[in-house]
């Protein structure tokens, strides 16, 4: 009996480790930004490109920052969830349109002038929102992805929960689901709003 006990225990430990390890999502890299102030930026607004938006304007409010692009397939999957959330209008939802033109492999953005690129970004982003519904209080244009780097974006869509003091409280990589919204994000928003 004792002869088989230790190999059996070893086997069970291995099974337990593999069961946990293989169920982890390797894409979910813990973000060092959680608990830190949201990086500052000033970017042109999609609805009014001559105006800019910066996170400082949201001081004193709990808000969500959602990174999206029209070429991003998972964003389309996530979109109805965001539209639903906006309808309930719990918190402002700011969209960060990420590399709308450059991120689309089909377009050679090197051939475009900055003005042409910006025009194209606005046309594509606005067109996409008109087609699928616009859940955003406002969207800003991160044309070259520079702000995305400051936020550690590496897979669109990504969503950040930012509190009244401007601290990032949660970062979610990948599409939001209704379950996740109900189980983690909305309770957190309610807690932060207090």
């Amino acid at each position, binding site marked *: 009996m004792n002869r088989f006990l230790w190999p059996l225990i070893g086997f069970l430990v291995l099974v337990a480790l593999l069961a946990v390890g293989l169920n982890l999502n390797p894409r979910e*890299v813990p973000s060092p930004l959680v608990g830190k102030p949201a990086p500052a930026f000033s970017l042109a607004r999609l609805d009014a490109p001559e105006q800019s938006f910066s996170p400082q304007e949201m001081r004193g409010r709990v808000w969500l920052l959602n990174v999206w692009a029209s070429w991003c397939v998972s964003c389309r999957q996530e979109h109805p969830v965001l539209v639903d959330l906006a309808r309930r209008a719990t918190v402002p939802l700011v969209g960060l349109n990420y590399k709308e033109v450059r991120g689309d*492999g089909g377009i050679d953005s090197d051939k475009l002038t900055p003005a042409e690129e910006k025009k194209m970004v606005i046309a594509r982003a606005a067109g996409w929102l008109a087609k699928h519904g616009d859940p955003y209080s406002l969207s800003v244009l991160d044309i070259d*992805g520079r702000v*995305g*780097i*400051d936020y550690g974006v590496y897979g669109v869509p990504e969503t950040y929960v930012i509190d009244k003091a401007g601290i990032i409280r949660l970062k979610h990589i990948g599409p939001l689901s209704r379950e996740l919204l109900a189980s983690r994000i909305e309770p957190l928003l309610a807690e932060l709003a207090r």
Partner: protein
Amino acid sequence: MNRVLVFFLLILALLGGGRLSAGEAAPRAADEATEKRLAAIASELRCLVCQNESLAGSNAELAGDLRREIRALIKDGKSDSEIMAFMVERYGDFVRYRPPLKATTLLLWFGPALLCAIGLAALLRYLRRRSRAIEDRPLSAEEQRRVEALLGTTDSSEGKS
């Protein structure tokens, strides 16, 4: 004949590929020192899009952006460790192929050595127990008789065989 053709096609493909990459690298070759440092730093960093590639080797869009970013930081006169810190601040320790030694990475650093030590201890224990089990000792008179009975041999029958 066919082989010669394949050979020529290969050469052509190689030349073509070489020209493509050269075309891309040409405007940057101006500053060789920057490129050398960039290559050294980028090979220490993980590309987050295709996680098993380094930032130096990856063709992912984000890797290109980050290389550009590192190039700009080098031009700004930032040191290698400042550039590392810039990356870790945004993407966490995970971007480094050689993560720093701290409480959360203790298992990562010493896990393999620990497993090795456990394995060695188990092996030693097993070998010691086994060598004890097969210890030599002379047969007792009773055992000697049983052996002879089983083998059907005695000193007298030895001569016959």
